[in-house]
């Protein structure tokens, strides 16, 4: 009995327990409801099936979640502008590649120029957010609220309020697949971003600094770590991730749709971080947790789609999940529950 309890305690105490548990739960429920969920077939030389779809579609979110994880860890706040920044990046890329026309069948400018410009746009947005948060000490959510609303407006201005189409095969590759490779390209992009970030965090001191600043800013100062700089960098990095994610999203639909690229993804990204077992108050983080969290959420979304829930309606369920997770993290709730328990116990004694 005790051994079992200890085992459960150890299991639930494991950092990645929450995201893995949720992922298994979602996948398992699919297995029962949709027997074909795990079937994988090959169509036109590309893997095809629900599960592939989840892994493919989750890529944008995985990339976002990576940046969001660092922002949350360093500043204890979240960047809600990521979805809008994605649409800015997409718009910038398409604008460069189309040379300002509404639809083109071949690149007007070199592909690489568009990509670089999009990434630069993401970084610039990140700099803006980082400046407000780290330098002016404005609450992260308010600071990023500015781009959250204005970002799509800027994207609209760039695309002149219309959808810019890039009807070039090579442009579509980033979002679909490269001929001869059966796995969709976004999966690789996500993988590369995650790996590079992992290496960056491990091989430079950034990961260590971010956690140190997030856990104890006062101690960091006395140890000679510039916390404002670290927080700034985390927002810049988050902007960079949003830029890359925006490129992938834009390539999927081979166009810049300012209204719909990255729509509602900010909530998903925050949810991925929380679901990954990371505290939204900042500090120690697990990149892998957030990545698993991101796949879990995409699995959830795909499941809900399969059940006939429209994309507009899905946020309802996700919002509930967010509230439940943060409520469970709340120390106040724990205090309330333990108070209630002692009350019940003492009540019994009296009786």
């Amino acid at each position, binding site marked *: 009995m005790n051994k079992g309890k200890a085992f459960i305690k150890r299991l639930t105490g494991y950092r990645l327990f929450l995201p893995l548990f949720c992922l298994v739960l979602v996948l398992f429920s699919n297995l029962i409801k949709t027997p074909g969920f795990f079937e994988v077939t090959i169509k036109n030389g590309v893997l095809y099936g629900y599960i592939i779809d989840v892994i493919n579609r989750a890529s944008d979110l995985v990339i976002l979640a990576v940046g969001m994880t660092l922002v949350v860890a360093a500043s204890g706040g979240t960047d809600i502008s990521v979805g809008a920044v994605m649409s800015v990046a997409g718009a910038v890329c398409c604008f460069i590649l189309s040379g300002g026309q509404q639809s083109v069948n071949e690149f007007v400018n070199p592909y690489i120029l568009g990509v670089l410009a999009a990434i630069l746009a993401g970084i610039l947005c990140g700099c803006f957010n980082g400046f407000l948060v780290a330098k002016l000490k404005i609450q992260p959510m308010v600071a990023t*609220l*500015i781009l959250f609303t204005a970002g799509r407006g*800027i994207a609209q*201005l760039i695309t002149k309020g219309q959808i810019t189409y890039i009807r070039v095969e090579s442009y579509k590759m980033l979002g679909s697949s490269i001929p001869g490779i059966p796995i969709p390209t976004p999966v690789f992009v996500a993988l590369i971003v995650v790996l590079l970030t992992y290496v960056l965090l491990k091989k430079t001191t950034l990961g260590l600094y971010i956690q140190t600043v997030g856990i104890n800013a006062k101690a960091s100062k006395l140890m000679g770590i510039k916390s404002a700089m670290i927080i700034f960098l985390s927002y810049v990095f988050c902007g960079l991730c949003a830029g890359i994610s925006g490129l992938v999203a834009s390539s999927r639909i081979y166009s810049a749709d300012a209204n719909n690229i990255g729509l509602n993804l900010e909530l998903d990204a925050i949810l991925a971080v929380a679901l990954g077992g990371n505290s939204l108050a900042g500090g120690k983080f697990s990149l892998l947790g957030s990545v698993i969290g991101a796949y879990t959420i995409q699995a959830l979304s795909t499941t809900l789609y399969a059940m006939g829930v429209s994309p*507009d309606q899905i946020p309802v369920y996700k919002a509930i999940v967010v509230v439940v997770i943060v409520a469970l993290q*709340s120390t106040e709730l724990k205090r309330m529950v333990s108070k209630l328990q002692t009350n019940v116990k003492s009540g019994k004694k009296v009786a």
Partner: protein
Amino acid sequence: MKKREKIDGKVFLLIITILLFLVMYAAGLIIFKSKGFAKPQVFLNLFISNAGLIVIAAGMTMVMITGGIDISVGSIVALTCMMLAWMMEIKGMGAVPALVIVLIMGIVFGLVQGFLIAYLKIQPFIVTLAGMFFARGMTAIISQEMISIKNEMFLKWAKSKINLTFLGGTVNKKGVVNYSFIYPSVIIALIVLIGIFVLLKFTKFGRTIYAVGGNEQSALMMGLNVRRTKLLVYVINGFLCSLGGFLFALNTCAGFVEQAKGFEMEAIASAVIGGTLLTGGVGNVFGSLFGVLIKGTIETFITFQGTLSSWWTKITIAALLAFFIILQSLFAKAKEKH
């Protein structure tokens, strides 16, 4: 010299705001003279098209004075409009019961958010972010199609003009005099504005809101009930959101999923531009009114100009918000040094 000392930061910010509005309006009078910008009706339209925003900005001001924030307001407006449209058009309910139900919905929404924030101490941003997606999603669950409101009583509320004869009128070709007018929504908005002003300035509850925003710990030590105050603020805010949503619906006479998107930003920007500090403790509903009027003026400019895309409104508001936030932050820094 001495006089200058007397003007402290918060008054200064408010003065900047009022000046900004006057300058902008004056600029409008000059630039769009030929298009009739000088008509009293243009000014009244600022109130007519922003009645809902005035009410919601008043609620937002209260929330922000406590040091909190609510980014769910836009979605609640959309949900309110959708519920009204759905209940009256699909379910055939009367306008009055529908109105009562949405107002209760707003209160319940505020109650839940307020509980999570005040009693479970979850960051207001996370709670209301979830609230924002929840309400928007619920709107889509009710109906993904746009529902137009055709309920007679509702349309009567929406379209009964109140002529302001003292402002004079213009005579059209048929010889009918067109007076300057407002809709009942404007009167409701102004009543709410005055009500919240009185609440904030002249009641113990109102002053406690300021105390909580000034220093929560101190407020607690002075024997004020911080948690209950916060909860109540979110409840009142929830009520004002649904009321504002109703006024919004009077303008649009429809409910659809994408409605009032970015409204939260407009409300927050209005409050901040009107001198409400993001750090809490300072704010004034009349300041926020000027914030709303500035936003309305920008919109009017864009309409009068004719070729600019409506996205410019959002971008300008965001830029203004950024500007005022930086201004606040500079003021705070100067004060610290002092």
